[in-house]
């Protein structure tokens, strides 16, 4: 039997949406308040969904401790209480939540192999959420 398991995590980070490919006016028009020069922050909620056969011996798709360890080590320690614009992952890409979703998915795809990474869902605020499945 194949089941999907989802775990939710919280991290907080700051960012500024600004593209070097756009003029100052275009940046302000495109990103609005998110372009303010000193940045701002969010409490991000990350939902990680993995899938796989339920192991008949353990009743589990994967051990939750292993998933928690991988997400803490690879995602939370990397981004929690950081300025996303200063991270090498966003040296070129704008740290929109779209781009952050893809970055987190690709990191987890590499580092967590105990179950199939189905998708991630990222809430930037209570009003905005983004999903990426590769």
């Amino acid at each position: 039997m194949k089941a999907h398991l989802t775990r939710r995590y919280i991290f907080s980070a700051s960012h500024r949406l600004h593209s070097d490919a756009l003029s100052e006016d275009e940046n302000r028009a495109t990103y609005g308040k998110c372009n303010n020069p000193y940045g701002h922050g969010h409490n991000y909620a990350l939902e990680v969904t993995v899938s796989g056969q339920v192991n008949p011996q353990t009743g589990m798709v994967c051990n939750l401790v292993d998933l928690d360890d991988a997400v803490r080590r690879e995602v939370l320690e990397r981004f929690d209480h950081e300025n996303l614009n200063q991270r090498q992952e966003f040296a070129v890409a704008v740290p929109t939540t779209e781009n952050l979703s893809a970055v987190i998915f690709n990191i987890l795809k590499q580092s967590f192999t105990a179950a199939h990474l189905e998708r991630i869902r990222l809430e930037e605020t209570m009003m905005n959420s983004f999903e990426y499945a590769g």
Partner: protein
Amino acid sequence: MVYLTRKCEFSASHYYHNPEFTDEENARIFGKCANLNGHGHNYTLEVTVKGDVDSRTGFVVDLKELKEILNREVIEALDHRHLNKEVPEFLTRIPTTENLAIAIWNRLQNKLTRAKLHRVRVYELPDLFVDFYGEP
């Protein structure tokens, strides 16, 4: 095709233990959940059914009927129970959230008359849930 989701809650206790494992293996694999005295959760269940909207009633499913089925098949069987000791599916299977979602699916699957069961989602905690779509 329209999807309808009904939510309900139940509270139950459980522990994780595989008699084929040694005590050390049970403790290593299941951690705190291996405590044989058990512990409990407030579970939230979301059941999603799908179907065409009946042109006479405007319903995908009669919610009254769905609610009765959920009460009879799930809530009465699981609410304020010890899953390992009182629920037949878990006399031989570990009551993980994965197995709970599968057991609830099996309890509901043939009970619906009009709509089809699409998904069973079981929250063990607000930050941990399992989805089962009846996939083999």
